[in-house]
Structures are given as C-alpha cells and as structure tokens.
C-alpha cells in the first residue's frame, strides 16, 4: 500500500465561487470545506453520518459532507451555510425564521439544520407538523428539544411563501 497516494486536482463551485485544489483522496468534503477553504460554518459532529451537523447542499440536494470525499465532488456545486445570506448580509428567510423563533441555543447543529431545511422546504413548501418532524429527523440538536426548531420551519415556510409571486 502506498504511503502517499498522488494528490488529485478537484475543481468545483462553492457558494457560487470557482475553486481548484489538489487534495489527497482521503480528504473528506467536510474537512476540505473547513481546512482548505476556511468555510468553518460547516460543523463536524459525529463524522459518521448520524448527527447531520455537516449537512451541505450538493447540486441542490442535502447531503452529509462527512460521508463524501472531496475528490468525489469535482465539477459539482456545493452550498454551505456561508452561501445562504444575501450579498448585503441580510439573512436568508430560513435563517430569519430560526432567529425569530429562537430555534437554537449553542448553535452547533444550526448550519446543518438550515441546509436540510432549505432542501426540505423546496420539496415540501407547506408542510404539516408531522412532515416537518420527519424532515428534521436527520439532524440532531442536543439543546433546544426541537420545539422551537419546528416552529422556525413553520415560520420559514410562511416567509418563503410571502416571497413567491402569487399564483
């Protein structure tokens, strides 16, 4: 077995910006985002796909960045929590809803929740409470007890509906 497999060049877009890096095959996407790109908003909790803290969007779909290798995402578009706020730094409606409903305490799990909820509300724009709880099941929070997070998703669904042009 080789000690140092040749680094592999990956080019991808992260939060709309092109980047190219040479990475060892075993570098996880989560570590790539944090250590190579300095995007430390992606939090690393369990590193085996259970806690959801490292959730990012890969070509629009919510995925665990700790279960992907950086070399696998070549040519893809990745969105992290840093990519949610507007260029003028105003909050994304889902961030606004989490803020209004006090849907966080320590905030460690929050980036993962936000990215999961972006994908969830895109697929289910007006969810029932049961659907919200199912949608949140893949993210763990150890502080808030989820009540305010559920409220925040409900609120986010309203805020997003307000933004859509009337049908």
């Amino acid at each position, binding site marked *: *077995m*080789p*000690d*140092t*497999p040749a680094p*592999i060049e990956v080019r991808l877009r992260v939060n709309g910006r092109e980047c190219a890096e040479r990475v*060892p*095959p*075993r*570098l*996880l996407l989560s*570590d790539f985002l944090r250590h190579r790109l300095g995007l430390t908003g992606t939090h690393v909790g369990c*590193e*085996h*796909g259970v806690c*959801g803290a490292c*959730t990012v969007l*890969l070509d629009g*779909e*919510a*995925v*665990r960045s*700790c*279960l*992907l*290798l950086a*070399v*696998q995402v070549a040519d893809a578009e990745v969105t992290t929590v840093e990519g949610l706020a507007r260029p003028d730094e105003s909050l994304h409606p889902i961030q606004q809803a989490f803020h209004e409903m006090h849907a966080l305490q320590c905030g460690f799990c929050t980036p993962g929740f936000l990215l*999961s909820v972006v*994908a*969830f509300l895109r697929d289910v724009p007006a969810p029932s409470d049961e659907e919200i709880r*199912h*949608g949140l*099941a*893949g993210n763990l929070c150890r502080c808030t007890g989820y009540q305010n997070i559920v409220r925040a998703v409900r609120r986010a669904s309203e805020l997003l509906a307000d933004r859509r042009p009337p049908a």
Partner: protein
Amino acid sequence: MKPPVFEYTAVRSTDEAVAELEQHGDGAKILAGGQSLVPLLNMRLATPDRLIDLNRVAELAHVTARDGGVAIGAMTRQRTVERSELAARHVPLLADAIPWVGHFQIRNRGTVGGSLSHADPAAELPAVALCLDARFTARGPAGERTLAAEEFFRTQLTTALKPTELLTEVWFPASARGSGSAWIELARRHGDFALVGVGAVVTLAGDRIGEARLALTGVGDRPVRAREAEARLAGEPLSPDVLADAAEAVRRAIDPGSDIHATAAYRRHVAGVLAGRAIRLAAARAKEAERA
C-alpha cells in the same frame, strides 16, 4: 484525516470497474453511495488499499420497465427510487419501504446496489428483495450472471458476489393485479436501523388470502423469508386464529440477537406482532386495489 490512506480511481464504465477489480482484487473496495462505507473508513473499521468509485458510471443509474417488472441500476440513488412513479406503481413494497432507509440526506447519496451489496442484516432493501424474489445481475471478469435473492445474501455483510464481481442491476417483478403490500418497522427513532422490519405482499381470493409473502429484517444474520407462515396463510380467511398462528410461525423462523437496543425475546415478540399488522395492511390494500 479520519479515513486511512487509500488509492482512488473514479471509473467511467462497468467494464472499467471490473478491470480495476480484477487488477486489485481483495485489497480494493467499491465505493457506491458511501453511506455505509465512509463511516467504516472514518472509524477505520475498513482499510482498503484502493477505492473504485462508481459514482460517475452513468450506465449504472436507471429505473427501467423491463420483462414484466422494474430493473434498477445498482448506482440508482435511493431518493430517485423514492421519487419514481414507475417504482411506486409496479413495486409498491419497495416504494413503501424506501422512506425508512436512513434519512432523506442519506437517501440522496445512498444507492440501491450499495445497500444490497453491503447486506447489513438490519437494512430494509435486502428484505424487500427477498420478499419479492428479486433477481440480481452481477458482472465479473468471466461476464455476467444472474442470482436469485435467496442465494445472494449469505450472512451479515456477506453476499454471493465474488471479490472481482460487482452488482450491476436488480430486477423486481411487477406486483400482481389485485395484490397489496406493506412495509412496517419498529425503530427507536425514525431513521435508525430497525429493531425489526417486516414486508408483506398479499393476494386475495374472494374473502380468503390467496397467496402471502413475508420477509423480515433485523432478526438474524441476513434477511429471512417466513415460508411456514406464508403456507399457514394461503387459502385461509384473515381471522385472528390464522394471524396468531402465522405470527407464531414467524417467531419460529427467526433467530434475533440481543444488543443495547432490544433483547432477542423482545425482537421475537415484535416480529410476530408486526407480521400480523403488515399482513392486515397488505390485505386491506389488496381489497382497495380490487375495487379500483
């Protein structure tokens, strides 16, 4: 870095994957969706010399109507199957079970072939494949061969695939007209591996059960088909006595283990209860299908 050192090849075709497997053999590991393999790498429970990444093999990702059933390419994401009208219409047991696989974030990456090849004894898809007598297509240096679900699962995390073979496709027969199916499982939290999961398919003959199929997960070293229970149900009315006998037959067919989540006795009990519920739900859906 959490994972051990390995070489990495992203192949573009099945042929290329087979050539890589042949060249590197036992030291190589196929990377499909990575939702089981990467945790094993991160915990260094798996230390392959080389990963052969199938994620860029377009020919392995498809859901296709074929031969009176639905063929699903090994690299088809579980989420794609969840959203597939073809799968929902023709393989309703699969459609019923797939939302129970992990969470949607996991299913966005996790693949049908990856779950089947990994053969976790508590996974949903192996039991679904066994329940429906799915057919597996494997490709190796000697060419292609087809395996029955019954012969595919050997023991935990072990299938009939050779080290130089990979699973390319699984074919599910379309559900019979007027049949109903149901997947029911019990887990401590949604998205956890099931303590016990049961898949049932029921065809009615008038007021009686015509044919019943039952398969379970989480109850031994591999998925289990409860054939004695199926035989007890065939041709019988859906009465409490018949269901109780079938539940007992299910409990005899399985060999669950104990762990921190549940004792063997609890799993055995729950398996019988869930089997009864799954049969009743499948029968109710069969009745609905007859009326439709």
